[in-house]
């Protein structure tokens, strides 16, 4: 399916479109947490994302796939205003969180980023901070001092990120002392500690060994009970394993979007099919 330029509004649009796509009513009531409307991003004159309209459902994993350079990262970063500090990045269109435009001039980007967490492609622990301080950085550094509370949050976040048992005896050693896979789970724990509502992950396993990748995939499965998750991956198997919905990007456009199973078994667009069968990308 080609998502034509959106003119209608609201959650209903996606629901009806979804139904027509699948050919039957969705099993679960779909709860749209976020959506983009005609979202475009350009760097100077280069258009990296072209008029993308897509929903992000609550308690679902949405995978974004597509060949490298097709604008997946650019799109993802637009969802929590990470482009605000990128020189030359210009964003048009709308990004709605629970129906409210996150780019509205009155909206504080800091608040948005606390509600929409992000995990980057490369693990990014704060090198000089201890593991504990890394995890609770988003709380401690905005003035939350209650040690007991921070301890609880730290343990909970590390447990959610499946890292607690490995580091519980050395919470005071620096974050940089962990292995790559552990550092990525630390980055996830740090994102979870501020209890966001949406979690964005940009190829979170691309720099990890298969074992660590598998752990993170398991983690995504557990996390989706409580979050809306968007994961960028160019590992198709991974997209198939972890996601409920999949969007296929090509040259900055969202070519096709729908239930993962549907997209993988019976894509509508020829480009999608070519990509999924390994003809390019």
């Amino acid at each position, binding site marked *: 399916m080609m998502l034509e330029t959106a003119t209608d509004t609201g959650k209903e649009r996606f629901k009806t479109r979804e139904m027509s796509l699948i050919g039957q009513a969705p099993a679960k009531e779909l709860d749209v947490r976020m959506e983009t409307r005609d979202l475009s991003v350009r760097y100077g004159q280069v258009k990296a994302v072209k008029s993308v309209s897509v929903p992000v459902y609550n308690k679902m994993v949405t995978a974004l796939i597509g060949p490298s350079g097709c604008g997946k990262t650019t799109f993802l970063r637009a969802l929590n205003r990470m482009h605000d500090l990128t020189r030359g990045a210009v964003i048009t269109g709308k990004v709605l969180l629970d129906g409210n435009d996150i780019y509205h001039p009155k909206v504080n980007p800091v608040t948005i*980023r606390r509600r929409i967490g992000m995990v980057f492609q490369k693990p990014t622990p704060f090198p000089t901070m201890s593991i504990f301080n890394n995890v609770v950085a988003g709380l401690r550094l905005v003035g939350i001092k209650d040690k007991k509370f921070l301890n609880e949050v730290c343990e909970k976040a590390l447990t959610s990120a499946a890292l607690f048992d490995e580091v519980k005896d050395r919470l005071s050693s620096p974050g940089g002392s962990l292995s790559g896979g552990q550092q990525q789970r630390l980055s996830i724990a740090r994102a979870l500690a501020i209890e966001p509502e949406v979690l964005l992950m940009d190829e979170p396993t691309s720099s990890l060994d298969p074992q660590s990748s598998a752990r993170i995939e398991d983690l995504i499965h557990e996390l989706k009970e409580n979050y809306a998750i968007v994961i960028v991956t160019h590992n198709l198997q991974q997209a198939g394993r972890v996601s409920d919905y999949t969007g296929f990007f090509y040259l900055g456009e969202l070519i096709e979007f729908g239930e993962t199973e549907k997209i993988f078994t019976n894509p509508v667009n020829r480009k999608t099919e070519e990509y999924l069968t390994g003809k390019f990308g």
Partner: protein
Amino acid sequence: MIAIEERVSLKRRNLWGRFMVMLLVLSTLIVMIPLLIIIGYVIINGIGALNWEFFTEELGSPARAIQGRPTGLVHTIIGTLVVDTMALIIAAPVGLGAGILLSEYPDHRLNPPLRIINDTLNGMPAILKGLLAFSIIVKPMGTFSGLAGGVALAFVMIPIIARATESALMSIPWSIREAGLAIGLPRWRVVLSTVMPAARTGLVTGFLIAFARAAGEAAPLMFTSFGNNYLPRHWTGMIFGPVDTLPQRLYSLAISPYREWHTMGWAAGIVLMVFVIGLFITARLMTRGRRY
């Protein structure tokens, strides 16, 4: 055929390469020789005056030196430390702030003018900075003072600290900042709590280099901290009264008509040199251990 030609040209390139390396070694030596001559000359001429009293006695009148009574530069060494430290206390926050703005807020409206001002200040002759301190501190206070000297040297330190801070912060990967933003920290908090701690070695190195550069300046101190043959009676005299400092004392001793004082001037040169070289070496060693 081609193979042989390649081999010949490879040989020629090897020779050429070796010749260039030799040129590099030679120019290194040419750079080092004046340094060694200065160090050697200062030590030979000054070592005679470097005794215990040099570090424990005040200078007093020329008669002391001429009559062989105990005399020294303890007040100069203390004065130097006090004035330079005051300068650093004034310059560190200002330079740090400027460096942060230069590195972290490239789109800030004040960024371009600040860069120009900082470069200009960096290139401005130190004696003019002394003149500035003279007119804003000495004139209103009606007296030469350590504080005025500190302000003059702060003007020397500020642009150096600002530049060092900027480059130390820029050496921290951008991803660290984004990680901070992504957990909902405001921009200033990201800089303060994630970027600056990661860059702390570079920041301290900048302070040391600025300190060492300012410690060698004589001109801006001549009409600010002025000089003093004695320790002030009360420690506040170090801030609000005229204070002796090594570079300025070195100059006064050197232009004095007394041979004994000339030797003491050389000895002051040794102390200043050890102090400054020590600071630079410390800065160097710290940079080597940097993680970023």
